């Protein structure tokens, strides 16, 4: 095998390899969508963020408009503070409601934004005042069971009381 043919093959190989890396970065990964594009920050406080993770999507009307940048606990109010980085293309009204939703039963957790009608728009570093916490399934089930148990307990007590009356007579 002479040298120029070998160089050609190596060139083809390296070009293919780099093309594969670009394919993985652009087509499989999301290098050009939202990541790296500088956006502005919004802050939202929730009583409970459920399973919200870093880098979870922020969606408005189902469209991804940003990502969750950080999540921390306010040590004084014990509220979860989520910092959202929103794409500069999108602006939201000051009365926007941020809620924590789950797509599907087992799907990913995301922050949903519902814009209101306020003429004033949110700026970098502003806080979203109206928030709706995550629905924690375990709590709901727990509440349901507790209610059932309370009902059952009351019914049981009523019967006992009747029985007691019966023995008196």
């Amino acid at each position: 095998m002479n040298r120029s043919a070998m160089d050609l093959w190596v060139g083809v190989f390296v070009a293919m390899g780099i093309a594969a890396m670009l394919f993985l970065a652009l087509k499989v990964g999301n290098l050009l969508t939202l990541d790296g594009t500088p956006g502005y920050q919004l802050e939202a406080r929730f009583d409970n963020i459920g399973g919200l993770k870093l880098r979870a999507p922020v969606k408005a009307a189902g469209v991804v408009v940003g990502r969750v940048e950080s999540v921390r606990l306010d040590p004084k109010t014990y509220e979860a503070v989520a910092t959202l980085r929103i794409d500069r293309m999108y602006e939201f009204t000051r009365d926007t409601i941020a809620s924590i939703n789950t797509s599907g039963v087992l799907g990913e957790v995301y922050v949903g934004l519902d814009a209101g009608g306020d003429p004033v728009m949110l700026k970098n570093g502003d806080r979203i005042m109206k928030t709706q916490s995550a629905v924690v399934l375990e709590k709901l089930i727990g509440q349901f069971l507790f209610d059932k148990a309370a009902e059952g307990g009351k019914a049981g007590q009523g019967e006992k009381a009747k029985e007691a009356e019966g023995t008196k007579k």
Partner: protein
Amino acid sequence: MSVEVAQGLAYWLRRLGSAVTGGLAKLGYAARFLVAVLWHSPQAFRRIHLTLREVYFAGVLSLVIILMSGMFVGMVLSLQGYETLKRYGSDEQLGILVALALVRELGPVIAGLLFASRAGSAITAEIGLMKTTEQLAAMEMMAVDPLARVIAPRFWGGIISMPLLAALFSAFGVFGGYLVGVRLIGIDEGAFWGQMKAGVDVWPDVTNGIIKSVVFGIAVSLIAVFEGYDSKPTAEGVSTATTRTVVISSLTILALDFVMTAFMFRGGGV
């Protein structure tokens, strides 16, 4: 009686000790060998055609097996993944499953294993045979350092080839997954690519896969050239060295993969 027991015990302890010191000595030798190879590496780049030749032998000639395996692994992943995801009614997540499995784990690891058995063994056999036929000694006689002329180009050829092969493996795997998932099974094409894009991040997923493949490339190349250089100059020695290259590289890849995965993906959650 008790003297015999003590002697037997001493015998086994001595064997254990010699195994440990022997292993340590070899590890130290390999580390010094690595330093020597790195020291001679500038010459491998000064005469770049030597390294390019090794990229050709290690990389270009491994292309067929890597691309075919990548494609079949992607296709099988797609078939198996679909069967499982269908039970939960989330078969549109197939794109994420295939892409993440390939980019994070299977791409670097299987490409590394194939590379070790396809190219690593060839490098070891070549160097071992050069040593057996005293070509390395002849080079030294002519004041040509075999480390610079033979070892370093092969070492760097392997390191350059491996990440490219792993990326090609993953890319063809994703393509194979696409063929089976979208063309054969009939998942929505937009959902397949869209979910994949939403679920796979360049950082950490793709970059960590590339870091893994670079580390595997260094490990396999070092083991291959070291085993060849260290082989006994007999026919049997070369065959043993070649086998050792494949076995040790494969085990090293799997062990390194576990360690790196533990550090890289310790749950990026809150």
